[in-house]
């Protein structure tokens, strides 16, 4: 029964995410029905990608660093360059190989620039969970599209 409840919880989060994503997908599609040029397709794909990330982040809320970063990035659409990066002091002592890997991971996980290594790993775990569920959602939607 506990496993069922766990499944129910994760699946409800997934369901909220899927619902949000479908709504924004519909909105994107209704914006310009009809055939599209390649440029429009590219723009639409970018928009869909943003919708996917924002549905992920909005489902999680502002509890996590990565979702906060995504929401902030979406709100300030311009994407400020040259944002100051704060490095934690504890990371500097690490050997160069691992530090470069940690930096690569920081670049990958949104909002990971300001985190130390320990919190970065936690954020990465949560981010991987949400991202893989989002990938499953998108894959199933695309499958349904292609089947019909």
């Amino acid at each position, binding site marked *: 029964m506990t496993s*069922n409840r766990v*499944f*129910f919880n994760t*699946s*409800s989060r*997934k*369901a909220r995410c*899927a*619902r949000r994503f*479908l*709504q924004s*997908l*519909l*909105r994107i*599609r*209704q914006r310009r*029905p*009809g*055939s*599209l040029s390649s440029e429009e*397709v*590219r723009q*639409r*794909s*970018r*928009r*869909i*990608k943003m919708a*996917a990330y924002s549905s992920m982040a909005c489902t999680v809320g502002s509890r996590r660093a990565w979702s906060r970063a995504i929401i902030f990035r979406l709100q300030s659409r311009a994407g400020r360059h040259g944002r100051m990066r704060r490095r934690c002091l*504890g990371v500097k002592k690490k050997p160069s190989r*691992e530090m470069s*890997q*940690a930096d*690569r*991971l920081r670049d*990958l*996980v949104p909002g990971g620039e300001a985190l130390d290594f*320990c919190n970065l*790993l*936690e954020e*990465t*775990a949560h*981010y*991987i969970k949400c*991202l*893989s569920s*989002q*990938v*499953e*959602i*998108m*894959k*199933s*939607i*695309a*499958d*349904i*599209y*292609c089947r*019909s």
Partner: protein
Amino acid sequence: MERIAGTGGRSGSTGGEKEEIGAESFLFGEEIQRLMTGPPENGSSFTALLGLPANQAMELLHSQESDTAPAELSGEAWRDNHMNPHKLYYCSPTFPANTTLIDRAARFSVFAAGENSPETSSVPSNSSHKVKNEPTDTDSNPNSLPPLISNPTVENKNQRSTKRKEREKKAKGSTKKCKNASNETSEEAEKLPYVHVRARRGQATDSHSLAERARREKINARMKLLQELVPGCNKISGTALVLDEIISHVQSLQRQVEFLSMRLAAVNPRIDFNLDSLLAPESGSLVDSNFPSMVMPLMWPDVQANENRQPYQQLWNDDTLHQPVWGREEDDPHNFIAPEHSLLSYDSSANSGSLQSNQLKMEL
């Protein structure tokens, strides 16, 4: 105070009359010489040097004059070295380089307050709380002296040492206290300024190694969690390889999102209708299962007719309303076997995927 007034007057004179420059520079050099010759005995020029209010500096002097007069002398010389260039080059009424000097003054006042407490002279480790707030200061200070052997019994003999030595002693007193807390012999700790104790298994030496061990354990636990998340990562051992795997997994997931969004965007827009009908049969099945089937034909053309999202919103709300019903049906083991049959299985519904896909085909 008097110095500031003097420089103000001098700068005013240089602005006004040019023939007085020679005399003025003479006065200037004289004052520099006065500063360079040695520390003044009275407190007034000391207050002028510090740029502090007179009462504060007097308080400083009175609290320190008993045991740390040589420290003040050395500090005086240091301050002279630092102030003379500013006096030479700027010659402005405002006091130059305020930040460093005021910083030092504030620090001195902190230590003066600490020395006023009666238990400081006997046990140095009790007053270490004020010092612990600025541990980096001793490292960043270029004039900091190497730490001495700190012994509480020799405390009274070391009264002629400078302020910094005392500060470092206090800092070491704090580490000593930690070691005493962890049942270490204090004589060993006094021998070496920085003790690198190789802790045996399960033995905590001081707070730093304790914290570091806790941090390492936390990192290992999270690494293990990530290893479970990332497929094919369980067999790999070694932090670097696992990190590599994690990075590539995140990259592949992000690339998949990009690819799928491209795929979703490139789908022919005439299938838009299918997306609408996709949402509809889910609610239709819901309605079907809970209400008399006559309701469905009423809602179904409504969905088809106007393509705004409002009806879907209602249907989704229906969806959430009836979740407990689905939760009751969760005992069906087939739910978890085939979740990828349709999108609908990603909903919290516990309807079996095969049933929903059948319904979907029916509706389509």
